[in-house]
């Protein structure tokens, strides 16, 4: 396969990281590429032919008939996966068809299967990305939606507007005017103007080319922007025109050449879709549409049950971080509660203990006092007794003396009486 020319080894000041692009190139080729393209539009607008023309292959053949060949009652969403290889580069191309779209009498909600499909691919990717054990994730998300507008020449149909409004924030929409070979250039010009006007009026966001620094490239891009929406013709029939073999549609009045820039915008579409902006379509899908889906989905999950007003400004947090924070808050709350309860407990215990102490002290004091009292009384009693004993002893002593005196006195009297008696004799 072709590789970019190697950088010249310049020993003066050579480092080598200028070779990084080559390394990236090499690895990407080894990995291979994948792209999912969705085509939406009423039957008969030449969608299958357009796909076959774009990819120069019979995606839909007798073996694998296209959706128009299958009779559908309701809108289906069908995928076809093909592997194509070119210049050493492998591409896994997934074409998503929507047969039945807009074909019913009542087409209300016919976009629902389409949005459901896109969302389910986003969901698959989100789930794969959120696994604990992640493998190489295949990118099956819808990278681009070609919306086929019928060449009425007047303007967008209500269905067109409704569909695009429902899908412009989910997928890159590239609106195309189908079967452009039914309009003259002037009619086509008018039609395009009208469509763009209506798109702007309804604020529909179709895929926009990114701004790039290269002035030359930007000039080309601006020219393309003026030609939006692209009016295309598809065909895989080879016809000979002026000695050249070209792909085109043969009419009695001439051949409408698919790859002739003056006949239609097919070449622009092909170059833009495949040769220059395929990677950007994937990037926008990944960085914008998928992220929108993801953030909406995760916000719904995380803030389920939590006050949404409080958290509206904090959408940058991951659900895990949110849980972590909730956990931390709860732990802090519990700790505080524990502390408070502990404090109350301690205080109550202290109170009770203090009370107990006080009553013990009181009782002790009373006991002491009573004891003292008793002792005092005891002492008093002792003293009294002692006093009494003394008094009794001394009185008894006194009494004895008195008794003796009395006895002596009476003896004396007795003697005197006897003497008187003796005297009288």
């Amino acid at each position, binding site marked *: 396969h072709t590789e970019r020319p190697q950088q010249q080894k310049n020993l003066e000041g050579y480092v080598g990281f*200028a070779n*990084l692009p080559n390394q990236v190139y090499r690895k990407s080729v080894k990995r291979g590429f994948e792209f999912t393209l969705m085509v939406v539009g009423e039957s008969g607008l030449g969608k299958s032919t357009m796909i076959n023309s774009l990819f120069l292959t019979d995606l839909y053949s007798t073996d694998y008939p296209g959706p128009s060949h299958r009779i559908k009652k309701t809108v289906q969403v069908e995928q076809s*996966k093909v592997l194509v290889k*070119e210049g050493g580069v492998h591409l896994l191309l997934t074409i998503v068809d929507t047969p039945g779209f807009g074909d019913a009498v009542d087409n209300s909600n016919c976009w629902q299967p389409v949005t459901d499909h896109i969302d389910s691919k986003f969901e698959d990717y989100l789930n794969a990305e959120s696994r604990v*054990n*992640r493998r190489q994730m295949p990118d099956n998300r819808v990278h681009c939606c070609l919306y086929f507008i019928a060449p009425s020449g007047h303007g967008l149909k209500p269905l067109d507007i409704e569909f695009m409004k429902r899908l412009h924030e989910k997928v890159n929409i590239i609106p195309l005017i189908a079967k452009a070979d039914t309009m003259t250039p002037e009619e086509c010009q008018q039609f395009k103007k009208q469509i763009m006007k209506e798109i702007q009026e309804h604020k529909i966001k179709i895929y926009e080319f990114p701004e790039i620094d290269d002035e030359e490239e930007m000039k080309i891009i601006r020219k393309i922007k003026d030609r939006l929406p692209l009016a295309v013709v598809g065909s895989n029939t080879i016809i000979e025109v002026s000695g050249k073999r070209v792909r085109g549609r043969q009419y009695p009045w001439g051949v409408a050449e698919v790859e002739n820039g003056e006949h239609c915008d097919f070449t622009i579409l092909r170059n833009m879709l495949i040769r220059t902006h395929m*990677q950007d379509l994937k990037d926008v899908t990944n960085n914008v549409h998928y992220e929108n889906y993801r953030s909406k989905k995760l916000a719904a999950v995380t803030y389920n049950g939590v006050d949404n007003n409080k958290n509206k400004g904090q959408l940058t947090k991951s659900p895990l971080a949110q849980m972590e924070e909730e956990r931390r808050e709860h732990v802090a709350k519990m700790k505080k509660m524990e502390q408070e*309860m502990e404090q109350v*407990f301690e205080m109550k215990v202290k109170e009770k203990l203090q009370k107990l102490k006080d009553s013990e002290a009181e009782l002790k004091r009373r006991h002491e006092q009573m004891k003292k009292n008793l002792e005092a*009384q005891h002492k008093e009693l002792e003293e009294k007794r002692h006093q009494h004993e003394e008094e009794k002893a001394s009185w008894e002593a006194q009494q004895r003396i008195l008794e003796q005196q009395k006895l002596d006195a009476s003896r004396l009297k007795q003697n005197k009486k006897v003497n008187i008696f003796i005297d009288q004799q």
Partner: protein
Amino acid sequence: AAEMRIAKMEGEGARAVPLAGHVGFDSMPDQLVNKSVNHGFCFNILCVGETGLGKSTLMDTLFNTKFEGEPTQHNQPGVTLKSNTYELQESNVRLKLTVVNTVGFGDQINKEDSYKSIVEFIDAQFEAYLQEELKIKRTLHSYHDTRIHACLYFIAPTGHSLKSLDLVTMKKLDSKVNIIPIIAKSDAISKSELAKFKIKITSELVSNGVQIYQFPTDDESVAEINSTMNSHLPFAVVGSTEEVKIGNKMVKARQYPWGTVQVENENHCDFVKLREMLIRVNMEDLREQTHTRHYELYRRCKLEEMGFKDTDPDSKPFSLQETYEAKRNEFMGELQKKEEEMRQMFVQRVKEKEAELKEAEKELHEKFDRLKKLHQDEKKKLEEKKKSLDDELNTFKQKKTAAELLQNQAQQAGGSTTLKRDKERKK
């Protein structure tokens, strides 16, 4: 490899179809490359090695720039990591290069914790990326990736074997970062010693189960050169920003009395090999390995630690919403339970304490009841004593009174007798 992928895709229901002409998607690699070049590249190198092994000089030599920083002293108290980011440009390629240096590595007496700050730093970068990746509103495509893509481990040129610090550190790092061991200041080793040294190092790494980065050999375009280089590991390098004139050219070299060591001379050292492998050939692979292997391992461990797990085997997709809901409910439930437990514990404690205090109170009352009783008894005794004393006193009083009465009577009688006598005398 491409064939395997095709076979896998065919297994998924894809069929290969031929193309009838040139479609143009072979420009996809170019589209991707253009995008990368416009976005700029990013690469982060961690240099681990003892002070004085020439880490800064080697970085300067590798990237042809004088990076910031003064040479550090040997007296650092611990290992710190200093990181500097530079915007480099070569041709039309812009590179945001971050060089992280371990300051003070190997300088301490006790080196047991040396590896810790390095592991923490590496983990911190993974954590930052993980947090960004998990945010609800995230901007991954403009996130400045700070994860370490390559770790150059500087081995001291002793010529003998790896130091135990080296083995311990590399073992701790090998599951977190791509390790590229290099022999620093290899101009101190002779050619024959070098060969032996390399063999010794390699065998020690193998016998200790250290996984160093292997240059990938799965892509045919670089398989050969990579596998040749793998056999030259570890690279013996010399760094120098000084230039010496050799012939008519100025080359980066170190001048000795016995000769000049030319940095970019492949006979003199492996500097060119290192530069080739690290920068020119495998820089992108180093970055990819970091993202798909080391980071994924960190992420898996972190999520498992937090209790997340894939509820269903590979093939069946599971609802993210349900997982988060379940996880959240589980953890809320846990918290509720913990709260309940704590409450219960408190209630229990309160009960116990109350009972304790009641016991104490009861004892106290009993004690004082006893004392009171003693008191009563004492009082009673005292009363009795008092009473008996009072009785005695009364008895005594009565006796006294009676005796006095008798005495008075006697005195009266005696008094009259004396009067009579006196009267008679007078007669």
